């Protein structure tokens, strides 16, 4: 079964490369305009401007400390949880700036789901993990059906359907991560953010997550942070490369957007020398 999967994936990558779809212009799910995030006085990322296309996979890559996690957390207002964080600039989502005072972060997070680096299922049953979001959002009509649908979409249903009351902690790492994806999908977001979703997983589990991403692309917009360039190359349509700028005194490190383009361009013909240095391994 493993070899068949691998063949399937290889075929898919080959096909994808030849098709080379351009982002559907005019359909951006996020438009970032000069976004800067500072923790107290220290700027973590500065002046980020880019459009994230809908129904595509957009990757954020860069060396450690370049603010990739900070950037992705801007998109679902998770930075709000850090008291010293201050966000300036605009993040336009469905015509509204997410950081307007009138906007409810709780609503934002329902529509923009997140999967974390280390799988973090709740210490409850598989069923309750997926049902949690539905319950708190009052989406409890046909609860069983919704749970099954989410688990199917996350490619986990067949493996767990025999006992949904099993504790989530008994699942393997890869299964837990797919459970977290199901949990996010259940509340019907239109976007899924993934902060290094496979870095804590073994290669086989990683592969399955990447396959899943392709399947999910039809229905959701996906933004993924990864430190693994090959993964970005395999999986994403658009790639943003963040690099670190060091202040003159040498004490402040801030992430800035070096380049943002279609993945093939980034990896085969980058325009910025910093991008080229990174992908050819000269640093980072």
């Amino acid at each position: 079964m493993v070899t068949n999967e691998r063949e399937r994936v290889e075929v898919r990558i080959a096909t994808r490369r030849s098709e080379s779809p351009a982002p559907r212009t005019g359909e951006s799910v996020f438009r970032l305009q000069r976004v800067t995030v500072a923790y107290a006085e220290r700027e973590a990322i500065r002046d980020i401007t880019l459009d994230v296309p809908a129904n595509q996979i957009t990757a954020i890559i860069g060396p450690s400390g370049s603010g990739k996690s900070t950037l992705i957390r801007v998109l679902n207002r998770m930075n709000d949880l850090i008291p010293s964080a201050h966000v300036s600039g605009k993040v336009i989502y469905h015509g509204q700036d997410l950081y307007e005072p009138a906007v409810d972060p709780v609503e934002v997070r329902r529509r923009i789901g997140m999967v974390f680096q280390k799988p973090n299922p709740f210490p409850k049953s598989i069923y309750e993990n997926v049902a949690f979001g539905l319950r708190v959002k009052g989406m409890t009509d046909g609860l069983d059906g919704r749970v099954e649908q989410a688990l199917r979409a996350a490619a986990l249903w067949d493996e767990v359907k025999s006992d949904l009351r099993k504790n989530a902690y008994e699942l393997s790492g890869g299964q837990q991560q797919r459970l977290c994806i199901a949990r996010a999908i259940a509340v019907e977001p239109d976007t899924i953010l993934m902060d290094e979703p496979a870095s804590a997983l073994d290669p086989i589990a990683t592969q399955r997550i990447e396959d899943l991403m392709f399947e999910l692309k039809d229905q959701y917009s996906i933004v993924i942070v990864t430190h693994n360039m090959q993964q970005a190359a395999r999986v994403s349509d658009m790639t943003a490369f963040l690099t670190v700028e060091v202040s003159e005194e040498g004490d402040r490190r801030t992430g800035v957007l070096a380049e943002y383009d279609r993945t093939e361009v980034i990896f085969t013909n980058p325009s910025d020398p910093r991008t080229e240095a990174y992908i050819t391994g000269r640093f980072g």
Partner: protein
Amino acid sequence: MGAVPDIDLTRRRRVGERLIRGALLACGVLSIGVTLGILASLATETIEFFRTVSPIDYLTGTRWAPTFTPSDFGVLPLVSATLLITAIAAAVAFPLGLGAAIYLSEYATSRVRRVIKPTLEVLAGIPTVVFGYFALTFVTPDVLQPLIPGTRIFNALSGGLVVGVMIIPLVASISEDAMRAVPWSLREAAYGMGATRRTVATRVVLPAALSGVAAAFSLALSRAIGETMIVAIAAGLNPNLSPDPRQGMATMTAYIVQVSLGDTPFGSIEYKTIYALGTTLFVMTLALNVVSYRFVKRFRERYE
């Protein structure tokens, strides 16, 4: 899914959430209310008290007889009883508690610790009435009276000794925590020079843990001063200004109990006296607690 038409992201009112957070805040702030309540209830009655009784008489008088005629409101008999018993308790608990702490920290194997520590916790959990019973029905008749002629049935010595034993676990656990927090590197240096365990314990670890031990001592004193039932049972309820521990004498706390056992109409002079005593008690224990806290801070600054 795909492109979703204009969606509503505006802030929801979420009244339920706000109400709950308000209730939680109230719970959190309650403790401040308790402190204010203590201060207010003590202060109001004490101020009333000092309208009838002069503070000088109170603080320097040697006869405490509020209900007699002529009445006397000298608090010294009660304070001296409290201090005498506390001193005896300290004489018991400080060396024994410290010794136990040194043993547990520097000498005991983990097996021994696993047995001893819960036992000390049991000792700490015994209700004070039970200790009082023990003092009156065993320590006094079976230990003190045979050994020390002239020991009365109610006596300060019995109370002090038992209070001392009761606070051994307190002294031991805080001192032990302080000693275990001393970095291993200090011990290593000493052992490396060929020092014995005894030397390391007394010359290296103990001095390093000194402020933690001081915190333990202050807290133990505070506890002993505030102790009520053991002294009420063992040392009796009658004020007696005497340096002789073989005699019975009421502490401040015991006197409050004595008054409360009777009928105390609100606003009567007796009612006010228990609050005046309460204030005196509160001030003494607060001072010791603050001292203890300062020692803990100093210790933490050094090692954490």
